């Protein structure tokens, strides 16, 4: 039984201006492969009913909050923009920046010169890696799942990158993709396709920002395909200004002995809906899903996870930590799914919530769907304000109340933040927590 789906419709269900006219303009002048992929995604998108508040997934996140019809796609010039370095870039091997000025790809450490690592826009990949892109674009989705916004992104993406690591590539610094949208009323539709051959090891970060008071929407789609014994980490930092709206779909397929880390960190924006799913599909495949969210000042953050075990002897661990205050509202929903005969699965799902005042709300709906025996799956959720016994303990050691509270909130999030492979992002998140927590 599918876990997230609505029945398909015969009459096309379209959202806002995302119709055939827009599709044609996106396809115009493109490589035939990309045109075909867009059309296939469009057909699927149009068949999936529009989300509404009566669908379980949207009961706590009204899809009308995204006001999709009021946005038109961000124009991103084809001409390359000049690369503008910021100090944090020294943490990365490759830095891509995307804005209304264009796209810049900077190979800081010469890691792209020998061709073992490929980082390029999707249209270039369609020409230079046609067969591989044909096999991988749109291929990471968990079988049988239908995701309206992933297909919308697949049909209408307006910027896309292909990251391809050949066997054995081991990247020290990692790849950063920095998105900045300063154009009010526009929607950014970024696509990322990651192909990791066997025995590769690398990390990718995506960071999303916009100026305060500028209404923007982002509908992001990312897919990762990991071959045997690959080790890939992806960090997504939703750090939009106060009027940013975000919908994200991350999907990974993980083969034998490979390990994926998918981090979703939502701290900025007005409304955000992140979905992260992985299919651990061969023995000894392993997935870690780490998340943090901190909703204050009327922010509404929703996160959904799917740990999909389609093979015996596969592992996944999920830890999402959230805090809410000042009318913030957070939702976590997640499912561990183990298919028939998938014995030896070991899977955990934990969602902890700090509810820092009585104006804020946190909902948590963990779930298991298990069709196999002889496995270990567990889930749990907790809610609460700062633990009074922990606070008393720290204070009894001479640590003043404000500092003790700060330590407890930091410590709460550090269980996830410390696993992020980029130190500058850890520092940034600590600073955001300090600001939101108000110390």
């Amino acid at each position, binding site marked *: 039984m599918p876990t997230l789906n609505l029945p398909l419709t015969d009459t096309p269900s379209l959202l806002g201006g995302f119709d055939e006219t827009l599709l044609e303009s996106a396809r115009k002048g493109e490589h035939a492969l990309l045109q075909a992929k867009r059309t296939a995604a469009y057909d699927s998108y149009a068949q999936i009913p529009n989300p509404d508040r009566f669908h379980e997934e949207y009961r706590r996140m009204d899809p009308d909050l995204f006001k999709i019809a009021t946005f038109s796609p961000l124009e991103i010039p084809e001409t390359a923009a000049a690369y503008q370095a910021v100090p944090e870039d020294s943490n990365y091997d490759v830095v891509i920046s995307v804005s209304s000025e264009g796209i810049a790809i900077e190979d800081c450490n010469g890691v792209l010169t020998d061709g073992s690592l490929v980082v390029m826009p999707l249209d270039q990949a369609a020409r230079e890696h046609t067969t591989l892109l044909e096999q991988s674009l749109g291929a990471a989705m968990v079988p049988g799942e239908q995701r309206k916004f992933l297909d919308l992104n697949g049909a209408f993406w307006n910027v896309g990158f292909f990251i391809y690591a050949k066997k054995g590539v081991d990247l020290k610094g990692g790849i950063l993709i920095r998105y900045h949208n300063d154009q009010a009323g526009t929607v950014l539709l970024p696509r990322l396709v990651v192909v990791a051959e066997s025995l590769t090891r690398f990390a990718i970060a995506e960071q999303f920002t916009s100026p305060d008071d500028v209404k923007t929407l982002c509908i992001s789609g990312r897919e990762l395909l990991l071959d045997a014994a690959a080790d890939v980490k992806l960090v997504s930092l939703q750090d939009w200004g106060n009027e940013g709206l975000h919908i994200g779909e991350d999907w990974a397929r993980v083969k034998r002995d490979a390990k994926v880390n998918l981090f979703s960190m939502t701290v900025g924006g007005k409304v955000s809906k992140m979905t992260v799913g992985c299919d651990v599909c061969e023995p000894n495949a392993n997935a870690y899903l780490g998340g943090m969210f901190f909703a204050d000042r009327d922010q509404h953050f929703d996160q959904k996870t799917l740990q999909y075990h389609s093979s015996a002897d596969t592992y996944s661990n999920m830890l999402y930590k959230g805090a809410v205050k000042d009318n913030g509202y957070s939702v976590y929903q997640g499912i561990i799914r183990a298919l028939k005969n998938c014995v030896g699965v070991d899977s955990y799902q934990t969602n902890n919530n700090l509810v820092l005042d009585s104006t804020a709300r946190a909902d948590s709906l963990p779930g298991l769907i298990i069709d196999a025996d002889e496995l270990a799956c567990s889930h749990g959720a907790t809610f609460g304000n700062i633990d009074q016994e922990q606070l008393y303990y720290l204070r009894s050691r*001479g640590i003043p109340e404000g500092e003790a509270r700060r*330590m407890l909130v930091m410590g709460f999030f550090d269980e996830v933040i410390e696993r992020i492979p980029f130190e500058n992002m850890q520092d940034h998140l600590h600073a955001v927590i300090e600001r939101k927590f108000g110390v």
Partner: protein
Amino acid sequence: MAYLEIKNLHARTGDIKILKGVNLEINKGEVHALMGPNGSGKSTLSSVIMGHPDYEVTEGDILLNGESILEMDPDERALAGLFLCFQYPVAIPGVSISNFMKKAVDARHPEGKAPAGPFLKEMRENMDYLDMDKAFANRGLNEGFSGGEKKRMEILQMMMFKPSIAIMDETDSGLDIDALQVVAKGVNKMRGPELGLLVITHYERILTYIAPQFLHILMEGKVVMSGGPELVKKLEENGYDWVRDQLAATV
């Protein structure tokens, strides 16, 4: 005037009156033991001295170096020189031991920040002394610790913070003989003219390792009997019923 003076202390939690007039005096350089049956108020006394928010003092006073501490927050009491060795230390995942220790040592430093080098050196030496694995420093505070590891952690803090009065709340509970010896080793190293010690227990066992000069017996929220080391032996032989009989006889 004693360094720590507990005068006619009455305290309650919610509607339950637990302490009903405790009197106790402890000077620096002295080791006192406080014993009593379950429910007599031993742990409550330590919580009230440290300022746990769940307890309310309804009568009496606690003076440290001549000044009342009743209006002070737990962190102020700690900085004034009090230390409580918890019976059940809480785990705080995500807060590493080294970070926690540094913050607590910083709070005691006149400039608000202790130099990192000497701090780390002292912590390493003390961890060595207590047979603690130095990898502990990077772990979450008490996270996944055994009973013995938690108690060593408490003693390590006592050695680092150098209190003038330390209260050990049933530090021996849940410890095997090896762990108890390590704990006692740490405590005995601290003994001296600068430290007053109150060892709360309901077994005599720990008192063979940490020999007290004074013993007090707490029953139903009051110190009902005080004496020297000979009282420990008497209590061991005759039990609390003997104390009750003695009290009945005097009434």
